[in-house]
């Protein structure tokens, strides 16, 4: 929206992403990448058309149903969006807390995930006491705690150094390959796009190339 005149950020997007894919969404600023990400993540609903996630049409869902749907989506933001007053462990637990998991179970699970992303010794630290790369791992751990259908990452390399980027890429590939987690990354970074199995390019709200989902599915299956 600009003023009161609606400006469509996306026009005519027709896209399928299958389970197990590792997809990069690329495009210049203002091409509608983030809008697409918000729609896929059920943070927003389209004014026209529909988004179907796991056979559920988001435009048909009410606010509560959308909230429940989001519990199955792992979001990792460019600025991590950790809650500053909570420790790494508490941040990771938060999603599970919202799902109503018992304190004992969610603590065990959060510890396990934090250890798996290499933060076993940083669990009691608050975000301000962690490096950018570590904060990002906490954010990924929180997303993984949701047992997500897919991980959505928004510009994951925008705020970290090269070394962190490399280890992030390794982590993402590992999650995709060994655990079969679907990964969708919105990025400017050609390096990331290269590592993804498929790249979708957006320009001015239009998909100009969407790679080949068939190949991805074959690889992931």
């Amino acid at each position, binding site marked *: 929206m600009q003023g009161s005149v609606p400006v469509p950020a996306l026009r005519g997007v027709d896209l399928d992403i299958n389970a197990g894919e590792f997809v990069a969404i690329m495009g210049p600023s203002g091409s509608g990448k983030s809008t697409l990400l918000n729609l896929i993540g059920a943070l927003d609903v389209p004014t026209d058309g529909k988004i179907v996630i796991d056979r559920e049409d988001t435009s048909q869902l009410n606010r*509560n149903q959308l909230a429940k749907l*989001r519990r199955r989506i792992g979001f990792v933001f460019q600025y991590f969006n950790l809650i500053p007053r909570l420790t790494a462990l508490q941040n990771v637990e938060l999603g599970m807390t919202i799902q109503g998991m018992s304190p004992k179970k969610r603590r065990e699970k959060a510890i396990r995930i934090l250890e798996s992303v290499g933060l076993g010794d940083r669990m009691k630290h608050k975000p301000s006491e962690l490096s950018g790369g570590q904060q990002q791992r906490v954010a990924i751990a929180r997303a993984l705690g949701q047992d997500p259908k897919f991980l959505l990452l928004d510009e994951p390399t925008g705020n970290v150094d090269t070394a962190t980027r490399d280890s992030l890429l390794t982590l993402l590939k590992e999650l995709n390959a060994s655990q079969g987690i679907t990964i969708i990354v919105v990025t400017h970074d050609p390096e990331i796009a290269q590592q993804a199995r498929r790249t979708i390019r957006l320009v001015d709200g239009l998909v100009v190339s969407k790679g080949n989902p068939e190949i991805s599915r074959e690889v992931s299956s």
Partner: protein
Amino acid sequence: MRLFDQLGYAGNAIKTRKVRAGLTTLGISIGIAAIVALLALSNGFQAEISRQFELGFSTNVLYVTKNTEGPDPDFELHLNDSDVISGLSPHIDLVLPYLRTNLCNVTIGGQNYSLSSVGGVNFTAFHDLFPTTFVTTNGSIPIEDSNTSVVIGSKITKDPYNYKVGDNITLTWFQTVLVLEPAPHQVVIASHNRTFPVAAILPEIGGFGIGGPSDSGIYIQLTPAIEFFNTTVTNSIIVRIDSANPDQSVIDNVTAAIKNAYGKKINIISPTAILNTINRIFGFISIFIAGIAGISLVVAGIGIMNVQITSVLERTREIGILKVLGAKDRTVLSAFLFETLFIGLLGSALGIGIGWILSIVFGVIIGGTMTGGGMMGGDGGSAASNGFRISPILTPELILWAVIFGVIVAIVFGLYPASRASRLKPVDALRSE
């Protein structure tokens, strides 16, 4: 989200903003403290008034007096009217006429003092009616109706009178007539004096002494009083009902029987009715006072709303994160409401404590002023035993209502910010800086 987790989350949010939460809590505390202190004091004051009142009055008696605005201005209640009244109802077990009091003078050291409560009454019946106040530990109350000794109130034993048992009191009263020209005034046509020995001194009674024995009274047996004052006109006739705590219906019956016989020529005063009226007035005053104190609670509520709106603005991103993680609107709403609920509960608890302390402090101060100023009888320290003192009363109902009000205010004023938070769209919330 589990209830316990919601509470924990709200608690954590408060903990990180201790000063702000503390000040908001203080606001609620002050409001609650004001209400609790004022109502506890008012309860105590009311109880004290009732206590003082009951010292001078018995609840099972009625006072029959001449209606000065009645149809017959020359009508007087005479001693023999007590015989008429006693036959009116089977519920009446004692009728005591109280001879009209005259202003009497006493001369002490060349100085004239006037006494307004010199009364003629049958001592035995008077003691029967007021067994706790018309008694003595100093001297003895004469039984014989023609005995010319007097019984005096405790004030008459103090400055400037200083009478003791065995002393003689010379009372003087002046017979006057009304002269209309040039302006209406009383002219003394004769003076009558007589000396009475003091037989007994009453204990300190305090209270208002309406009808019953009073600290400044001088009591003469009926027969010598009739002789001295040369009258059979009564001030009032006290009627006692045959049970210590009569039902209102019995009181009403007796009242109606007397009214039937005398019509509008007389007034009937029921202490119970007066006490009820006093209590009703106090109830109203209490509510009024609490209402004024309630304004401070509303101010505190606005404080909560202010702080929570700021908090929602500051934590918009956090709200967005909660929603991204799948929190429902209701969960966000209750997370914020629980914060204000904590503030309300803590504020109420503190407020009740502070209010209680304040009421005790003010009770002592007010009690001190009243006694020190001699407002309610007794001079200085001597009034301590029976003087006016306020012990604040904190009833369980008052505590309950204080907590309910504190919590209601917290929730009502926290509702708007919380619902604003809950209605935020996740995309918009995350976009905020």
